[in-house]
């Protein structure tokens, strides 16, 4: 069986036999391999793995019930928190006020309507009626207000704080279904921010419980309930039978079709993908790029290009060789990052030339992404201009006897995957031509997160990313780091009052066109300064087996949504 068109093996929405919206829109978020590249891997698939038999397009009848086995990678320490690994899990049990649909449109969820005052300082949300938490208590405005207090005043979620601390003033319940949030300054990205799972609403009674209980089983109003957590193995979710308040962009209202989810933690990519082939898992996370085309031929593969900051090299603008803008620019010109990325990820994950905002983010500046094409001559000229004129016996440039040595510290296995490490190794090799001696320093998760490599004296460059549905993330990643308002997320240590002013102005601009222009301007400044050099987009992918339909990746951060999922026969 050698299909000539990859589309013949994909589930056809027209054949599924019931009303559904097609998602995700492949043209926007998903990039699929096309053309000749497909033929060889399909041949490998035919001889390399056991056949699944059924064409995914054949089965059409929805079967209610059943438990979805989902194989995920990392197991976080708690099911609720400010890390995307926690958002994956808490998204299953918590609902947010709003949901982000495709193309950045914000649609109702727990909030059915909202208005903002003329001065943009007062937001009023009307809440859906009849919503109950799974502990039986009712969701009302006071409950939401209690969550805001928990996140921002009790340190309940520091990622929420990263977005809102500067802007949040107060919140109160005007009546049971009307919530008012007041801000200190206008903040236009409020709605996209609220659509993320970090902002999932928990039952106030749940929040009164000790930390360890919130950690093990957050209680919300979502389509599923945490039934139990076998650490090191799986989290078990069961269906919330009363659920009737899915976001507007869901495919159906009412309780989930399936009985529950068995959320397994399978760290080994070979085992994870293998489990889908043998039918032990129905959905697997993070399709290995070497197997990408095999996966596309046999399964429903969905890719989500995360908006926010892409995986980019933050260059240390205050200490070491990169303190000189010319040297930073020389490094950008002197490395063929596009080739490095394409080869490391087998062409599956896109190169991102923009160092501050990824291509799937509203307000992305596409021109800034082309500022530094591979140009060895320009790199050399810039280094000469910066005084690095001599070349020693090993081909490394020197200035007054000092060698042009730079260290790249990267979170191996935590921030940077094995394939991402290959990108860095490629860059290390490429940079030799211009005369850079690059040292790669792998940091364990423990070293990285304990702050060993946080200060400007500890690295010359450090790759990082920040998933966010809005270009307003620039306020987190490039706000100035000042004595009285420190910003350690600015990994380039790049302090620029003008840049901060533009970002703040953009955050306070409601008109999307004007806002995009300002965000674009901010990205251009960062690019001109070469403070952060783009590598690739942070990307989520899942593969869904042929017996399951309508699993989708939500749009603010790419978490899998199982509320609409159902088995077919």
């Amino acid at each position, binding site marked *: 069986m050698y299909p000539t068109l990859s589309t013949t093996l994909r589930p056809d929405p027209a054949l599924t036999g019931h009303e559904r919206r097609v998602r995700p829109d492949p043209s926007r978020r998903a990039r699929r391999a096309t053309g000749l590249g497909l033929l060889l891997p399909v041949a490998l698939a035919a001889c390399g793995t056991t056949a699944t038999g059924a064409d995914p397009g054949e089965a059409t009848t929805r079967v209610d019930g059943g438990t979805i086995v989902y194989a995920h990678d990392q197991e976080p320490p708690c099911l609720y928190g400010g890390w995307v690994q926690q958002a994956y899990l808490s998204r299953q049990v918590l609902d947010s006020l709003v949901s982000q649909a495709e193309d950045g449109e914000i649609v109702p969820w727990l909030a059915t309507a909202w208005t903002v005052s003329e001065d943009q300082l007062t937001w009023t949300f009307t809440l859906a009626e009849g919503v109950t938490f799974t502990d039986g208590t009712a969701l009302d405005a006071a409950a939401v207000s209690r969550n805001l207090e928990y996140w921002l005043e009790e340190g309940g979620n520091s990622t929420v704080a990263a977005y809102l601390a500067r802007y949040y003033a107060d919140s109160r319940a005007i009546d049971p279904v009307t919530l008012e949030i007041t801000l200190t300054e206008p903040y236009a990205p409020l709605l996209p921010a609220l659509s993320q799972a970090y902002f999932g609403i928990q039952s106030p009674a749940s929040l009164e419980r000790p930390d360890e209980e919130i950690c093990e089983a957050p209680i919300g109003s979502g389509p599923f309930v945490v039934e139990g957590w076998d650490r090191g193995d799986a989290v078990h979710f069961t269906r919330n039978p009363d659920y009737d308040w899915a976001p507007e962009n869901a495919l159906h209202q009412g309780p989930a079709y399936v009985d529950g989810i068995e959320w397994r933690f399978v760290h080994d990519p070979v085992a994870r993908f293998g489990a889908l082939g043998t039918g032990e898992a129905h959905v697997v996370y993070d399709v290995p790029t070497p197997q990408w085309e095999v996966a596309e031929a046999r399964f429903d593969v969905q890719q989500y290009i995360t908006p926010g900051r892409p995986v980019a090299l933050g260059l240390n603008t205050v200490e070491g060789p990169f303190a000189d803008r010319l040297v930073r620019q020389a490094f950008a010109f002197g490395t063929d990052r596009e080739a490095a990325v394409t080869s490391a990820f087998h062409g599956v994950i896109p190169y991102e030339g923009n160092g501050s905002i990824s291509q799937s983010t509203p307000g992305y500046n596409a021109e800034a992404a082309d500022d530094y094409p591979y140009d060895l001559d320009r790199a050399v000229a810039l280094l000469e201009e910066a005084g690095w004129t001599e070349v020693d016996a090993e081909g490394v440039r020197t200035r007054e006897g000092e060698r042009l040595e730079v260290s790249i510290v990267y979170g191996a296995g935590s921030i940077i995957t094995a394939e991402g490490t290959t990108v860095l190794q490629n860059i290390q090799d490429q940079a030799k031509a211009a005369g850079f001696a690059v040292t790669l320093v792998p940091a364990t*998760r423990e070293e990285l997160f304990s702050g060993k490599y946080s200060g400007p004296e500890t690295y010359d460059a450090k790759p990082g990313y920040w998933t966010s549905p809005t270009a307003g993330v620039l306020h987190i990643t490039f706000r100035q780091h000042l004595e009285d308002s420190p910003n350690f997320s600015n990994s380039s240590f790049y302090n620029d009052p003008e840049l901060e002013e533009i970002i703040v102005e953009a955050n306070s601009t409601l008109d999307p066109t004007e806002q995009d222009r300002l965000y674009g301007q901010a990205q251009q400044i960062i690019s001109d300064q070469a403070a952060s050099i783009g590598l690739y987009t942070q990307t989520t992918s899942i593969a869904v087996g042929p017996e399951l339909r309508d699993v989708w990746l939500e749009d603010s951060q790419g978490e899998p949504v199982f509320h609409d999922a159902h088995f077919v026969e």
Partner: protein
Amino acid sequence: MSAPTTLPTERPDQASPGGGTGEAPRGPEPSGTPRRTSPRAVLTRLVSRVLGAALVLLGAATVVFAVQTLLPGDRATLLLNLQTGEAIERTPEELAPINARFGFDDPVLVQYGSYVGGLLRGDLGTSFQQHEPVTQVIGGQILPTVQLALGALVLAWVLSLITVLATAGRRRWIAGLGSGLEAVAASLPHYWLGVILLVVLAVQAGWFPVMGGTDLAATVLPVLTLAIPLAGFLGQATRDELDRVLEQPFVLSARTRGMGDAAVRVRHALRHAVVPAVTLSGWALGSLLSGAVIAESVFSRPGLGQVLVTAVDSRDLPVVGGVVIFVALVYVVANLLVDLAYTVIDPRRRP
């Protein structure tokens, strides 16, 4: 990993392991001094063993404490960053509640004192990350790891004995095949072997589940992953001895009495030949626990190994300490058992 042949010499507490083992029986203990067997001597020996074991455990706990506490980087920052997925510096205001909660601000000696004090009271502490008592964190995960380690040890013994008995002291090419197999097995890295077994027997052939679990079917491949290299080590150690023993006069005399080859090997020669492998087993049980870290990860199997990796990643001192103390305890107990085993195998060592 150390070469197996060097291992016995790394155990100075072992009373002359080679002493009476490979040699032909020469009647009474050759050393000459008569062994004292008074109850008092036994008691003294027992007390000193227990004290020694306690010191070993305290040493292990101290090393863990030192490593976890004195490494560069800040523990409160680490815990906060792990909650948010960011690797950034934190302000003192953000860190203050965490420092207060876990006492990270106290002088190191005070922290050490309270940690060891807790241990002496039998209190392993509460996990920094999971907010649960360590006994609970570890207790829930011990069984699958113990099953894995013991299963691997037993299987390794079976595999090595079969190979050695079938091939040692045979024609050159058969013996060569046996020792060649052992050398290859002993040099297989756990990770590589595990992935190969996973791909071939689980993903391709579909004989075993790909995603682990702790039932019997899911236990087979992780046990094989740990048992095959260990069988190589044990086989090598046993084979050298067996080759030597088979050339001893008492073997010849047994044969001249008309005893069959299999009986000579199993009933006479084997008893002498297994002593080095028994010595190795004490070490092996401990090393199986560390090998379990990899096997559990490859086969997505819950267990102590995964607990340890997560805890080290988050510098969760109570949990790391708990696992290390448990493993140290296993070493201590295993070596006591090995000593006991000598006396079973070699009656001359009985008091």
